[in-house]
């Protein structure tokens, strides 16, 4: 069982669509570029909310808020727990979305760029594929002197390398 990659969307840190490409016809419905732009913006917002909805809050932040009122207990919890000084995890939003017809993997880079990879519903190493796509992005987009940050990606080399990589996966 191998995955088929349907499409890729890249969203910049402000929620703007900077790249979208379909690799497999029939996987997803065709929607207009304008709809893609709206979708990117919506997803950006939803992603931020999903990070906030986390039902588990690390104890560290709870301790900090509860002890901020009194200085005497701060030292006690600080010495006992050790956790209040640990760096909190970066907020993590939606990573995988599953529906009846497709599966979407969202990879957020440390700089806030989101890679959305749409595949069929089998779960086989999509993580690896997203990582590789990110690799290609850092190579052929970020090292290109003619690319302006945060702007739509128009790099022939990226298109070509991404195309051949995804073709290789889809034809397995």
């Amino acid at each position, binding site marked *: 069982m191998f995955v088929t990659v349907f499409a890729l969307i890249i969203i910049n840190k402000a929620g703007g669509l900077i790249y979208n490409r379909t690799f497999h016809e029939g996987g997803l419905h065709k929607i207009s570029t304008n709809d893609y732009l709206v979708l990117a913006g919506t997803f950006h917002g*939803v992603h931020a909310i*999903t990070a906030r909805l986390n039902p*588990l809050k690390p104890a560290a932040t709870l301790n900090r808020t509860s002890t901020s009122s009194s200085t005497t207990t701060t030292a006690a919890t600080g010495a006992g727990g050790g956790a209040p000084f640990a760096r909190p995890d970066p907020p993590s939003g939606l*990573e*995988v*979305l599953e529906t009846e017809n*497709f599966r979407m993997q969202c990879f957020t880079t440390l700089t806030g760029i989101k890679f959305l990879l*749409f595949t069929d519903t089998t779960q086989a190493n999509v993580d690896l594929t997203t990582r590789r796509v990110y690799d290609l992005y850092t190579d052929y987009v970020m090292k290109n002197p003619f690319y302006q940050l945060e702007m739509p990606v128009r790099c022939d080399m990226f298109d070509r390398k991404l195309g051949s990589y995804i073709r290789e996966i889809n034809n397995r």
Partner: protein
Amino acid sequence: MVVYSFYIFDRHTECIYAKTWLPPTSSSESHAPGGPTTTLRPASADDAKLIFGTVFSLRNMVRKLGGDDDAFVSYRTAHYKLHFYETASSLRLVMLTDTATLSMRNVLHQIYINLWVEYVVKNPLSPVEHKGGVGVRNELFELGLDQFIGGLM
């Protein structure tokens, strides 16, 4: 498997039922140093609204991309997993669990058939519209749900 919370939204997008399950250790030890590393965040009324907004946006997004017959099933973050089930009458059931949980679609379906239909819909005292959660919080439904979820965990 851990279930964190469960929500029901009616077709008017109103939250008519919400319930959270606290981990047994957190209530007594949350202030002790070196206690559990995580505690359940106190759920607020805003949560229900945020969850509905999220689920509604994702559902529309999924329909746009996957076609009208496609249905949003679940999403997962690094910390939790949200399961979604929508009935033909636009009743929406949402459940938050830990990330290791597999698909809960069947479970939500079971809750709908065995609890909602049996104890709420067939209850002659419950109104047709559950404004503000009227008629949902009856004893049989609460008890049944607790037992059902307790059996899963």
